[in-house]
C-alpha cells in the first residue's frame, strides 16, 4: 500500500516537472521568439512531445510486471 502511494507520488512529481519543462519551452519560443520560425518550432515540439509522451504511457501500461519479475 505504502509502496503504491510512494510510486504514485513519484509519478506525479516527474509528470509535473516534465509538463512544466514542456510548457516553459513552448512559452519561451512563442513569447520571446522573433519571427515565425520559433512559433513553428514550438508547434512541432508540442505535437512531438504529445505523441512521444502518449507512446511512453501506452508502452508503460502494456508491461506485464508479473510476467517479467516471476521467473519461468
Amino acid at each position: 500500500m505504502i509502496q503504491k502511494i510512494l510510486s504514485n507520488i513519484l509519478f506525479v512529481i516527474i509528470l509535473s516537472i516534465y509538463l512544466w519543462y514542456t510548457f516553459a519551452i513552448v512559452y519561451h519560443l512563442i513569447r520571446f521568439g522573433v519571427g515565425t520560425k520559433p512559433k513553428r518550432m514550438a508547434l512541432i515540439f508540442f505535437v512531438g512531445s504529445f505523441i512521444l509522451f502518449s507512446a511512453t504511457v501506452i508502452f508503460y501500461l502494456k508491461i506485464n510486471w508479473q510476467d517479467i519479475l516471476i521467473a519461468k
Partner: protein
Amino acid sequence: MSIFTFSKNTFEGQLPGEETILVTRKHWIFLVLPLFLIFFLGAMILAFTFWISSFSWYERFSPIWQFILSLIFLILWNLGFWWIMIYSLNTIIITNKRIIENKQLGLFKHIVNELQLKDIQDISVKIIGPFAHLMNYGDIEVQSAGTVAKFFFNQLPWPEKIKNVIMEQKIKES
C-alpha cells in the same frame, strides 16, 4: 494561425516608430552540430534494439524495452528542442535606431545588450579559419562611443552583409 505564417519581427521592448530591419542568429552549423549528435545517439539506440531483438530472451523483455526506448526518445526530443530554443532566442536585432543583442543562456538567464546606431564609431569583421570561410560565418566587432566600449557578435552568418546593413542604417539615422 497567422503567427505561424506572418510576422513583422516585433520584439519585447520595441520603441514607438522603431522598425526591425534585420533579425539574425548564429550560423545554422552551430545548431546542426548538437542536433546531429542527438540524432546519432538515437540511431545508435535503434541499431542496438535491432541487434538485441535477435536474442531469444528479447521476446520476454520487449514490452519493458519498448517503454525504455520511448522514454529515451522523449528525453532526446526534449534535449534537441532545448538546443533549438537556445539557438532561436539568441538573436541580434538591427532596427532603424539601435542594435539589440538577446542572450538566452537558460530558461531564467536572459541578457539584453543594446547599442544606439548614433554611438557606433567603427565596425570590423573577422572571418578566421578555412571552415569559417567555407561556411561564410564570422565575428563582428563594433566600437562604440557609449558606456560599453566594444560589442562582439560571434559566429554570425554573412558578417559582411550584416556590417553593410548596420552601416546603411547608421548613415540613414545620421
